[in-house]
């Protein structure tokens, strides 16, 4: 066929596109299960990690055993049970053994400085105290805002009371090098004030939403057979 003809460039482009898209599609299909498994494993281990201490102190399972890669899937389905929820894009889990409820975990979302972020918020069985927090997806500045993922920042939330006299507690930020004096003070990350306060705002906003959705309503509905 003549290169100058009108139809040749179109056919050429079509052929090249089919070849390369074919290669990409095949490759993606080959790796798809592995990518999915990676994402799932990282999510499951982060959720279980929040309850690792509780499970260990109660003598149910040791931290190492809980988070061992080959046991991860099994442990997750054993201890974590998804709860029905009306809020879009969010999830709620009940973490329990056969005999007792160990706590709840909310999969929450909020806005940071550069984009949205997602976190897992673990609560004690009474849903009034934070057990732990982990931000598992964010787009903050690496080295500054992204440090909300680090132990030093997120461990501060463990053991915080959410309510005082029936009202939501307002968590406040204090400079990173200061020692918290009151129960509601959180050391912020220097150079990442917006991100730090976004985390506090996210927790507060989401708790209100989850409370409104009241998981108990679902339980009531189920019991009444609705």
């Amino acid at each position, binding site marked *: 066929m003549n*290169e100058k003809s009108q139809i*040749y*460039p179109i056919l*050429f*482009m079509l052929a*090249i*596109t089919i070849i*390369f*898209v074919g*290669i*990409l599609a095949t*490759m*993606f299909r080959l*790796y798809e299960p*592995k*990518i999915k498994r*990676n*994402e799932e494993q*990282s999510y499951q281990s982060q959720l279980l990690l929040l309850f690792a201490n509780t499970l260990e102190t109660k003598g149910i399972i040791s931290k190492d055993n809980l988070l061992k890669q080959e046991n991860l899937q099994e442990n997750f389905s054993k201890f974590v049970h998804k709860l029905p929820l009306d809020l879009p894009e969010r999830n709620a889990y009940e973490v329990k053994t056969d005999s007792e409820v160990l706590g709840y975990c909310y999969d929450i979302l909020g806005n940071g400085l550069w984009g949205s972020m997602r976190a897992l918020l673990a609560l004690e069985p009474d849903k009034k105290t934070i057990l732990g927090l982990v931000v598992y997806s964010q*787009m903050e*500045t*690496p*080295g*500054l805002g992204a440090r909300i993922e680090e132990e030093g920042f997120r461990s501060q939330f463990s053991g915080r009371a959410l309510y005082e006299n029936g009202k939501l507690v307002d968590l406040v930020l204090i400079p990173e090098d200061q020692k918290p004096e009151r129960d509601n003070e959180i050391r912020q990350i*220097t*150079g990442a004030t917006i991100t730090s306060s976004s985390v506090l705002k996210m927790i507060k906003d989401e708790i209100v939403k989850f409370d409104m959705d009241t998981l108990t309503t679902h339980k009531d509905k189920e019991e009444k057979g609705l």
Partner: protein
Amino acid sequence: MTKKEIFLVSAFKENSVIRQILGICSSLAVTNLMMNSLIMGLGVIFSVSLANLTISYIRNWTPRSVRMMVQTLIIAAYVIIVDIFLKANMPDISKQLGPYVGLIITNCILMGRAEAFAAKNKPIDSFIDGLGAGVGYTIVLLLIASIRELFGFGTLFGISIMGSWWTKWSIMVMAPSAFFILAILVWIINNRYYSSKA
């Protein structure tokens, strides 16, 4: 030009970042950590060399009117291969690099080499030219990253160099610092090595 010359010209004499000021976006964005820069550099080396090879192979059949579309398509295909590979095998690094791996597609170095070299030279030569361009890019990235990571985190490749007494410079972690470092590098290197030309 011999193959060695092609490589040296592409990597150093006509370094894409320092001499042609191409690929600046990613030089600013991913250079806060050495590891990120290295992986990014390897991704670019892989994509640019193979894209050059492929584009050069089909250059005689490619109609002029659609050659840029073909080049972009081929570059994009290789970059997506890198992206999928990282997601499957190095999920942590893939997460840190975020959207920047995908943005290799729009890195001007790739299109530049394709148009300037691969579209009119033999496949093996084009491959070497791409390799050179990628290596040159990686070296500059690592240079910037070494300064930023050392002052911003006190570490190199995550290994502590400065010790705990070091006060981290927040500015080094953010993109503007790369802007200044890159500009200073371009200034020094151009003055020192290319002044006679100018």
